[in-house]
């Protein structure tokens, strides 16, 4: 199969997946959700004929009398013109698109920091664990990764809060920036900073180094929690791959002809061992987003996950649909890109 044909096929599959996913959630929400939708938009103080009139108008506006698949097409049409509906949660009410613009940047920042931490922590430990197989260091790493792997993400957060926030008292564990500091800032309103909505970045833009430092410290524990929840899997996979690669003939040959051990490990072995790790990295990104939901609500960090939880808990139809779309798009895009990268790296996959 030609490469472009393979990519085209993958893209079509990805679109089908996204449509299927959103349609299913849409159908589920709207089977039970019509009354809820009305309740969101209906003024409870309205009575009598005015109320009837309002209901009629809303039914017409949201096409509630049409079959679900027709309603879905209206939603899809609105989506393509950039209109995702309205959200009404305690932390934000207004157009969904604005909510995404306000909350997504924080999550992106946390996820990027966590992804970097995963590389920094995961790769040296995974390589070390394989090279020094069955040493005390290897056993310690294996016990810790196995435990982390089994832990619910909120327990990791709680343990980090206990160690760094409560006993050592060196790191803050709530809000994106010290609230006392933030109270006097003109560019920080209702827990959201302007203009980029990423607090450390905004602090730099406004040249306020004290706030920058505070915001940076507030971001450490949430991103560390995310990283620790994922890194265990990376270390385990890398260790297994390294052990396999180190046994292979070309590594033996390199050693036999006298290549220094450091070069053998870092150049010959590690590169090949990393391929499967990289391919599983895409699913890791999707995992980070799921973890963000829990982490952001524990640390009161106003990201997309925090907003999603609020939408979920408040039966907010618009918010839930948008969250489904975002999570679905990230997951599907991640696996699409990986499939393509993998197909370029390894032509056998295409068949």
């Amino acid at each position: 199969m030609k490469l472009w044909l393979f990519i085209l096929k993958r893209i079509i599959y990805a679109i089908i997946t996204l449509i299927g996913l959103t349609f299913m959630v849409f159908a589920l929400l709207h089977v039970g959700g019509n009354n809820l939708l009305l309740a969101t938009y209906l003024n409870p103080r309205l009575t009598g004929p005015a109320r009837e009139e309002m209901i009629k108008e809303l039914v017409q506006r949201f096409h509630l009398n049409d079959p679900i698949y027709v309603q879905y097409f209206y939603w899809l049409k609105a989506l393509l013109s950039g209109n995702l509906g309205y959200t009404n949660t305690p932390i934000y009410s207004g157009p969904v698109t604005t909510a995404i613009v306000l909350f997504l940047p924080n999550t992106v920042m946390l996820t990027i920091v966590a992804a970097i931490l995963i590389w920094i922590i995961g790769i040296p430990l995974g390589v070390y664990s394989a090279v020094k197989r069955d040493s005390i260091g290897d056993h310690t790493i294996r016990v810790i990764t196995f435990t982390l792997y089994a832990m619910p993400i909120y327990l990791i957060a709680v343990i980090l809060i206990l160690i760094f926030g409560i006993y050592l008292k060196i790191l803050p564990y709530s809000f994106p920036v010290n609230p006392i500091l933030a109270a006097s800032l003109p560019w920080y309103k209702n827990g959201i900073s302007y203009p980029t909505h990423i607090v450390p970045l905004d602090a730099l833009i406004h040249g306020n180094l004290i706030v920058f430092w505070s915001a940076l410290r507030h971001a450490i524990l949430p991103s560390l929690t995310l990283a620790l929840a994922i890194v265990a899997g990376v270390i385990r996979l890398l260790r297994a791959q390294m052990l396999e690669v180190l046994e292979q003939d070309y590594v033996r040959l390199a050693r036999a002809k006298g290549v220094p051990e450091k070069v053998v490990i870092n150049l010959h072995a590690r590169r090949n061992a990393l391929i499967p790790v990289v391919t599983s990295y895409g699913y890791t990104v999707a995992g980070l987003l799921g973890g963000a939901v829990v982490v952001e609500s524990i640390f009161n960090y106003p990201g997309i996950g925090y907003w999603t939880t609020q939408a979920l808990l408040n039966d907010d139809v618009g918010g839930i649909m948008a969250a489904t779309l975002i999570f679905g798009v990230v997951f599907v895009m991640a696996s699409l890109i990986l499939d393509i990268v993998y197909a370029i790296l390894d032509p056998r996959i295409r068949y």
Partner: protein
Amino acid sequence: MERYSEFRYSLKIFFSNPTAVAGFIIFMLYVIDALIVQFDPRLLGISNPNVLQMNFVNPIPQPPSPKHPLGTTYPGIDLLHAIEAAIRFDLYYSIIVVLSGAALGAVLGIISGYVGGLLDDVIMRITDIFFAIPYLVLAIAIGFVLGRTYESMVIGLVIVWWPLYARYARAQTLSIKRMPFIDAAKISGVRDLKIMFKHILPNVLPPIFVQISLDLGSIMVIFSVLAFIGLIPNASIPELGYLTSLGLSYIESAPWAVIFPGLAITLFALAVNLMGDGLRDVIDPRRRSS
């Protein structure tokens, strides 16, 4: 006779692996706890295993003491009893999720792999769609329609979990399909349905069984996460994630209230993972030798 000795050999391999045995013992302790709570909760001093025993006279979390070996959490709940009751609850729901997911996935995977062609394509596309659903979003959508209860969360988790088993079963079926004994069965006129469920299913089951034991921990963790973020509003049910969330606002003064319920889940997930690794060594001869 030969089958019997093969089974004994497998048991020997499993029990010669100390970590797998440790995992198995811990898993059995959880099962025994669940059974005791189910049939005779008074043995553990629990009067009603379905409801948390609250004490509003003294609601502030108390540190561990002889009267409350693991301390108490808000509002005045004895943690030891609550955790014992919650284990039954979580174990019960995790097992239901994993078994129904595995059954659904195995059947669809075998059909998809065996029949092949267009049907295979369609089933696999559907699997992809379900695979892409974040469990959190689906759990809430289901909770929306059926009400936010543990039962509807179970349905939500089964819906996101079966695709994994379908993929395993399909891959396994594809490799078994090419074996001579299947051809022999076809030539001697055995019906497709019988081939699928009498000849292929038994060969698909072992790897699925391993996956079940590995997933049991993940499901319990996910279940507790759903309860932890407050998706299930009914307040007085003993559930490990909910117990953890009760202690969260007292984390500064009463760390035990969050640590102990969390550890109960971690220990279980750890145990079933170790057990699953041991089982995988038994069914996979390549891993056995190393």
